[in-house]
């Protein structure tokens, strides 16, 4: 019988290997799977490629992975923000590879992977630095850039409530990149505030169908450690 619930954050990330490509949902501090990121940090896989809209601020979230030297490359639309000290430090030292992607192109490339497309022609960035070296095409008189699908080994996402089959609903603007990332990874793990039985969510209200979700894990009591 289907039950995607993991009994711990630790077990939910246990198979992340060195060199893995990992998508992490969230926008600013909204909808970030902070507890999964902390479990990933403790797990300690290295040489990671992180795909995410931001790079974390201070010592939080993705910033803690950067600080611990676990990340080789980041694929990101807005890595620099007030407090993104670890990103800036490593980038300036040349210790972090950055692939800068316009935000809508980032979500569209992720969607393309989830939807089995090889790539899409987007008008975004046409005629700019970020299109250099990329194939372009004029369609009906308008310029487009070819952007290819962006796949991942793992997607760590955050939702409000899951059922045991992995169907998900979200809280307000906490959706952001989470639903689209769920579709694009080999293994998708959802950190959620609560878990209900299959059938406990209204089928009209489900945002992420369970087919896209491999593991569900409930948030644990916040540990206020000094990490």
């Amino acid at each position, binding site marked *: *019988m*289907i039950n995607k619930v993991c009994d711990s954050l630790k077990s939910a990330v246990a198979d992340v290997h060195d060199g893995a490509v990992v998508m992490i949902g969230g926008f600013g501090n909204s909808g970030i799977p902070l507890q999964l990121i902390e479990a990933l940090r403790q797990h300690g896989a290295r040489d990671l490629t992180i795909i995410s809209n931001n790079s974390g601020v201070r010592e939080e979230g993705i910033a803690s992975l950067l600080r611990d030297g676990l990340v080789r490359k980041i694929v990101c639309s807005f890595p620099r923000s007030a407090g993104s000290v670890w990103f800036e430090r490593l980038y300036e030292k040349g210790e972090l590879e950055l692939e800068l992607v316009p935000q809508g192109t980032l979500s569209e490339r992720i969607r393309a992977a989830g939807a*089995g497309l090889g790539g899409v022609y987007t008008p975004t960035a046409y005629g700019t630095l970020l299109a250099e070296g990329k194939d372009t095409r004029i369609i009906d008189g308008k310029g487009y850039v070819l952007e290819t699908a962006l796949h991942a080994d793992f997607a760590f996402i955050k939702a409000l409530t899951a059922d045991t*089959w992995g169907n998900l609903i979200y809280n307000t603007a906490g959706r952001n990149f989470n639903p689209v990332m769920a579709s694009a990874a080999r293994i998708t793990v959802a950190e959620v505030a609560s878990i209900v039985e*299959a*059938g406990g969510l209204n089928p*009209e209200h*489900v945002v992420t*169908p369970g*087919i896209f979700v491999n593991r569900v894990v409930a948030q644990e009591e916040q540990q206020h450690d000094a990490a």
Partner: protein
Amino acid sequence: MMRLSNEDMARRVAQDIPDGAYVNLGIGMPTQVANFVSADRQVIYHSENGILGVGPAPEPDKIDPDLINAGKQYVTLIPGGCYFDNSESFAMMRGGHLDIAVLGAFQVSATGDLANWATLSQTLPPAVGGAMDLAVGARQLFVLMRHNAKDNAPKILEKCVYPLTGAGVVKRIYTDLAVIDVTDEGLRVRELYGDNTLEEVQALTGAKLLPPLQEPSAH
């Protein structure tokens, strides 16, 4: 020779649908497979028009006219199912999220080409539906079809004569005579029904069949 009934063919496919699988069953005979999956397995059926968790036909007084499957039959939703739109539904199909799709076929080639949407007849206008998306997208594509056409012509061929639905997409073929895997070496018989021999089945097949592999010894 032993020829399975359509029902027994569907029963045979059902044995290979594992617990927890996400499955799309094509219109027609494949739809019957759901009737024979063991009750101790939870299988989540996908319908291309936008359903995960397709349940059995409703009681006549419980029909929701919008709640149909891809074959336009009234269905229900099981607890844990959900709805979504067509573009998300085909993202699931094309994106490799379905574990298994079971489709009917006119012809299958030795390299797993599938022809199931058009014949060479000009009398009917064409229609394709979602077959091409399922063909390229499902992780495993099973074909369920009678071994031979009504005129006894073989439907398993070195090369399809009818227009392709997808090239190199079929993983396994379930017919009324045998179960046949499409492998890198060619078509390998996996199972012969009853006392059917490889030679008998080969005689009814338009492509070279390889004998079943020996079971590996148990130690």
